[in-house]
């Protein structure tokens, strides 16, 4: 597609439920990133994919968080047993790894509210 697409745009869930957040990167972008942005804060790195593998998972805050990517395309971030502290905007971004560009393009994010 023309841009990075994330769904849903907004998600309200009850504490203790599992949620899945989806990211469709720009076609041909090999790298994919997930970030978390709490209210009024900067961006926290969660995980990075190169193709379908994740060489850097260092930002995942706990074992309740996991992510996968298939077909060097769509990625899903899963949060199990959600807690109120998980409430944030989850941003996905993608970029090419070849060529002269290193343009990291972001989606509009998913606003997750845990009640």
């Amino acid at each position, binding site marked *: 597609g023309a841009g990075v697409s994330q769904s849903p745009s907004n998600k309200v869930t009850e504490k203790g439920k599992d949620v899945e957040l989806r990211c469709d990167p720009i076609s041909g972008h090999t790298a994919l990133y997930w*970030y978390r*942005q709490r209210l009024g804060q*900067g961006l926290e*790195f969660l995980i*990075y994919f190169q193709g379908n593998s994740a060489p850097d998972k260092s930002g995942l805050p706990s074992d309740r968080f996991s992510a996968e990517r298939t077909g060097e395309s769509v990625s899903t971030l899963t949060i199990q047993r959600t807690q109120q502290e998980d409430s944030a905007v989850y941003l996905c971004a993608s970029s090419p790894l070849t060529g002269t560009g290193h343009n*990291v393009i*972001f989606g*509009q994010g998913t606003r997750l509210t845990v009640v």
Partner: protein
Amino acid sequence: AQTVTQSQPEMSVQEAETVTLSCTYDTSESDYYLFWYKQPPSRQMILVIRQEAYKQQNATENRFSVNFQKAAKSFSLKISDSQLGDAAMYFCAYSPPPGYALNFGKGTSLLVTP
């Protein structure tokens, strides 16, 4: 570890005037990328400008330009002829060569007054 510091939590500028947002970073790498992103209330992170460290020439995109001082590890953003639509959060970010995550500063909130 690389860190990015934005020392100005808030800045204000009048329409048509010029404003400079500051950013410093810490790294031991010689080759890296620096970015400025704009985040309006829509929360979309919009790439404003990008600088490659091995290029000495400062990047420019229309009304946006940077002052890249590699030795001082400084990367400021200048917005000329400010417009109301420039009001947003601005984030400075650092990245090693492609294939690594971006490290972001905490952001500067820019207010543009008529």
